């Protein structure tokens, strides 16, 4: 019974860390989005706040997988550390491919924001993109 309980304790610790990350991460991201909406999404500052929240939300599961990998490594569970880093690699490859494949000519910013908010709102997504991992 001894080793089984030990296993369970470690698992519980792992799960409470992960659930904390998910809950508070989602809360923080929603707060940024709410702030963005309060400031007005078409205004420069509001749009930027909302974009930060969206990037945080998208990055949150990737962060979770990174944390999972770290925990598996600490537990010397190298096979599962390899599994979770594979998932992280797939997400990263996808994001890089997305950036590479994005066609600048087809940027939605111009036709979308042309009518509203003049002055610098058009390049808003690009400036925020730098903050994503």
């Amino acid at each position, binding site marked *: 019974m001894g080793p089984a309980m030990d296993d369970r304790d470690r698992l519980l610790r792992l799960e409470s860390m992960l659930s904390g990350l998910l809950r508070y991460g*989602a809360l923080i991201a929603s707060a940024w989005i709410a702030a963005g909406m309060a400031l007005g999404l078409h205004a420069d500052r509001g749009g930027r706040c909302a974009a930060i929240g969206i990037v945080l939300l998208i990055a949150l599961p990737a962060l979770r997988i990174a944390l999972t990998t770290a925990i598996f490594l600490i537990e010397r569970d190298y096979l599962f550390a390899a599994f979770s880093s594979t*998932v992280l690699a797939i997400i990263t490859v996808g994001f890089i491919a*997305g950036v590479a494949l994005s066609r600048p000519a087809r940027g939605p910013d111009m036709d979308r924001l042309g009518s509203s908010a003049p002055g610098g709102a058009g390049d808003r997504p690009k400036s925020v993109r730098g903050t994503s991992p």
Partner: protein
Amino acid sequence: MIVAGPLDSLLIGLAALASGVFGGMLGMAAGIFIVPALTLAFGLDMTHAVGASLVSAIACSCGSAASAMENRLTNVRLAVLLEIGTTMGALTGVALSGVFPESALYLLFAAILVLSAHQMARKRKADLSPQDLTSPADPWATRLRLHSSFPDPLTRRDVAYSVDRVGLGLFLMYGAGAMSSLLGIGSGVLKVPAMDSAMRLPIKVSSATSNFMIGVTASASAGIYYARGDVLPEVAAPVALGSILGAYLGTKILMRTSNERIRSLFIVILLALAVKMSMAAFQGPASAPGG
């Protein structure tokens, strides 16, 4: 449609709130209502609707995954393994989305809506019959230590379960991941039955584990959509916020109402949406007012 002002964002937020309430009451993701709402009512492109819906799928998954983990229903090891399948599927789905014509996506979405309605009709019986958890286990699952246990709220004792057919499960998750990124849904509608019937997990464990995986799966495709500029902040922000709030309210309402009637009502709604989506496949969503 061009999202021109705060009023449009507010309306989109309200639609997402309603979708979240529906989803929360049914125990399913809001995406299945959000994409039809954005395309049919707001006349948005499928790509932009999917991009916004994926962000909201992440948001909803994070919130509910956290509480499911605290109830020890999630099998984290199994989730990590299956996420290899779902994320690879997600990349495939994004690659395919450029190949499929938009009308094919509408038809595919209609098919998923019909499948959801069918599953909802079947769920009543499944709730009653207890599952056999002592099924033969896959030797691979034993080797990877995927078997686990969950606390039964009625007896307050841990129920041990074994995991079967890991290979088939991975394959099915690949398909579910592709659907998720093509249509902007969490595709719990595909994952849960795959885990229930192919891998023979207890229903509570499969829905908790599915929910846990939705975040990572949606993140893989949402990252690409965002990088391509297909996640419009003025759409995604109200959708994410509205659906989180709605999902929270929905689960609260769920606890107070008998769900037999609601279920039959939503089966009708899902089928009606399926009809609308397949009509849009042939006529184009541009027939929507203001489109």
